[in-house]
């Protein structure tokens, strides 16, 4: 069963009298354990699409299924619950919580979003930190580590809840090429290990080579699909 299924998906922003069609009737599906990227120029609708998949922004029309559930009409509370349960996020600016240590940042979703028992939680956090190679940095605060390290911690935070789907909007935009590739490779490695589906957006040509499935977005239409099945031309 596909992790994400989108049919005739539309997102229109209304700003005053102006209507902006950010996403125009796109169809695609994403299979479990795949490594997918949406690429396209600035303003093409990558963020808009990822926000919809991530249950942060409801579609204007069309069908959108994530993890087997129709998410087009979730209310605020249920959308938050759904995100906490099924989706991990990796952000462009890392977005670690500055007053928490690396360990506590990774622990956050298990404690404040889901409620894991103490022992099990600590064990799981350490396991994830080891998986991303950050175990030795566990006690440091975000301000004390590098950008690449921050993003690795963020990947651990996204994966710690066993999320089926990790969404990353331009996760490498603030990293140098070497670090960017390292983070992408880490994500791939995680995908292999935990069978998590990774979906990210980028217009970074340095990492496009590294992904397996690429959807190209252009002005709200999804018009090209490479390397793999599981999508449609708009």
């Amino acid at each position: 069963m596909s992790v994400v299924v989108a049919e005739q998906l539309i997102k229109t922003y209304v700003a005053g009298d102006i209507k902006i069609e950010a996403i125009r009737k796109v169809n695609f599906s994403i299979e479990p354990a795949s490594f997918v990227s949406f690429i396209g120029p600035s303003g093409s609708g990558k963020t808009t699409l990822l926000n919809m998949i991530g249950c942060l922004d409801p579609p204007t029309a069309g069908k959108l299924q994530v993890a087997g559930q129709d998410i087009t009409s979730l209310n605020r509370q249920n959308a938050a619950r759904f995100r906490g349960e099924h989706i991990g996020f990796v952000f462009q600016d890392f977005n670690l919580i500055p007053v928490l240590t690396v360990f506590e940042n990774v622990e956050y979703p298990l404690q404040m979003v889901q409620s894991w028992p103490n022992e099990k939680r600590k064990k799981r956090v350490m396991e994830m930190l080891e998986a991303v190679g950050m175990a030795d940095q566990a006690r440091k605060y975000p301000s004390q580590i590098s950008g690449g390290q921050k993003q690795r911690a963020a990947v651990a935070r996204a994966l710690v809840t066993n999320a089926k789907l990790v969404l990353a909007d331009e996760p490498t935009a603030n990293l140098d090429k070497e670090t960017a590739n390292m983070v992408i490779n880490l994500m791939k490695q995680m995908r292999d290990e935990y069978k998590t589906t990774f979906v990210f957006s980028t217009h970074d040509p340095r990492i496009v080579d590294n992904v397996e499935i690429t959807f190209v977005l252009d002005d709200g239409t999804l018009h090209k699909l490479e390397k793999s099945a599981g999508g449609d031309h708009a």
Partner: protein
Amino acid sequence: MLNIFKLAARNLFRYKRRTLLTSTLITLGVVSVLLFISISGSFKALMVGQITDSMLGHIQIHKKGYLASIDSLPLNRNLTGKQIDKVVQVLAEEDAVEAYSMRIKLGAMFSNFIETTNIRLNAVTPTDEMKTAPLLTDRILEGEKENLLKAGEILIPELISKGMKVKVGDGIVLVANNKDGSVNGQNFMVRGILEGISGPGGRDGMIHINDAKSLLRIEAAEVSEIAIRLKDIYLLPAVFTSLQEKLGSMKNKQGMPVFEVHTWEKISPFFNIAKMIDLMTFFIKIMLVAIVLVSIMNVMVMAVYERINEIGTIAAIGTLPNKILSLFVVEGFLMGVLGTAVGTTISLISIAIMNATQIRFDFGRQTGLLLSPTIGATDVIFVVVIVVAIAVIASLQPAWKAAKMDPITALKHV
């Protein structure tokens, strides 16, 4: 829950200076309120004590209409035989009554054989009077304090002693009109000088009740007022209500009320000062509430604004709105608790120090009064609860704003 507190505490610690400043403000507010309550309370208790314990007693019973014409000290509005018996019987039923004193109040001419002046007199049974007004003897400026006075002796007010140049041991004459208008005179020896205090009866002289009876040619039992002392002033409202029910409602054959029952509050002008102190305490409390409200709300609005991005992050990864709300409310709560805890500690220590150093002050003609500030647990708890509750209420609006923030908009915020 523990993790919300941990996160809130960390965020407070992150802006150390701001947290410290706000908590200090709350601390100052709490200290001023608690010290004001304790000092004004001690002042009030002292003044009330002076008035009730050296003159008025806690409750007074008169014949209906006596108090309205008290300035002329009427003799035709005295309580008589059966009425006195009734009062005595009712008072015997009240456990809270410690003592009572029957008094005859009268006006007379006072002569030192050279000059004559008017004098107001309070005629008492010394043993009863001393039990009812235990601080009365403190008002005796000159002369023997022990046992107050005997028949044939008079305590004269300070003013007359000065004005008429009368000293302790001098002989004087009192001349009085009785109810029927006939005149009678009697010799007295000045036993002591009585200090004047404010309020009705505060400048009266004092003689033995038997002397008053012979001077006024009263044969049967008759008194102008019955002053009552309670075991504790806190029992006043309850006893007053009870006496009011039993005596205040009694009617004579014509259907008119027989007695009037008053508390010291109704009789003494100091009650208004006491009420003023209560009012000031109330306004100072209001100011404290305003300080806490404004300072906490201000800080929390800033805290939310500075952390929009973080709010977006935690909302995106699935933190439920009410958890975000409690995160910020707990921050305000902790700041309130910090300020209150420090403030209460400082206040209690200050009160202890003030008591240890025995601060004295003067009030009117009374000098060297000992300031002994105390504060009740209820007052402390009240202030603590109010401050912490206001801190929480002040955080609610900013916290609510944070909770309902749209994660996308919040994440975009720079």
